[in-house]
């Protein structure tokens, strides 16, 4: 089950990291951002980055199983700061996603970290007390139109 808390410009969400729950979590985030009139293209970017980061945790961190994932979002004037914490296997994003596979290779994977790196700023990773903590921010703009 997904546990969601929102306090003004802050959202906290905990889930069990199965692919189904990740979908549900992403939907909560999109609803929250739409209600704050964030432009559609930023919501799409964040949705994609979170989908990549969270499905990496489910597939690699928890080896296709599920486990605890906490997602924290802070919505500022010009950026959305995100922190994702999990208890899965340690990883090293510094070596991941520096380039995308060449399109002619027709690789079926290896795009995830490249996508995360391309759409985020200030990507930081820490491993502390058995926890993986991934922090990044995404530039955002509030839509001028109603709805």
């Amino acid at each position, binding site marked *: 089950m997904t546990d969601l808390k929102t306090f003004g410009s802050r959202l906290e969400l905990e889930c069990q990291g199965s692919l189904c729950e990740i979908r549900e979590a992403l939907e909560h985030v999109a609803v929250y951002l739409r209600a704050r009139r964030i432009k559609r*293209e930023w919501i799409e970017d964040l949705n994609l980055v979170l989908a990549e980061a969270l499905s990496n945790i489910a597939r690699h961190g928890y080896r296709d199983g599920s486990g605890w994932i906490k997602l924290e979002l802070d919505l500022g004037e010009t950026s959305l700061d995100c922190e994702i914490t999990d208890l899965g296997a340690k990883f090293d994003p510094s070596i991941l996603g520096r380039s995308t596979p060449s399109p002619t290779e027709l690789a079926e994977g290896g795009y995830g970290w490249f996508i995360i790196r391309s759409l985020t700023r200030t990507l930081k990773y820490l491993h502390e007390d058995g926890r993986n903590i991934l922090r990044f921010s995404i530039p955002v703009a509030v839509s001028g139109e109603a709805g």
Partner: protein
Amino acid sequence: MQFTLGRAGDALVIAVEETRLDAALALTFKDMVRESTTQEGSPVILDLSKVEFLDSSGLGAIVGAMKLLGPERPLEIAGLTSGVRKLFRLTRMDTVFKIHDRAPVIDSMKAAE
């Protein structure tokens, strides 16, 4: 997963009737393409106009489907929504697939699940 199969001239059209093609659906998608393409028609045109969200797993499954069909039966893509188009551009997959702006008009249709 929901999809529709149809013919448009010589082409076999597979229209994905899902709003998300992501990690949760990637394997099912490849199986669906394998089964659907036992039907005749070339090229195979994948209509993604209903798909609002594609992630790297979904993209990998589309690349996998293209490899499965082989060079004799090209896989082409139609009807990219804005987010999906962005992902194709970011990964430069727009240079690999022939991309149609609009989904082709289908001659005959068969809904499947």
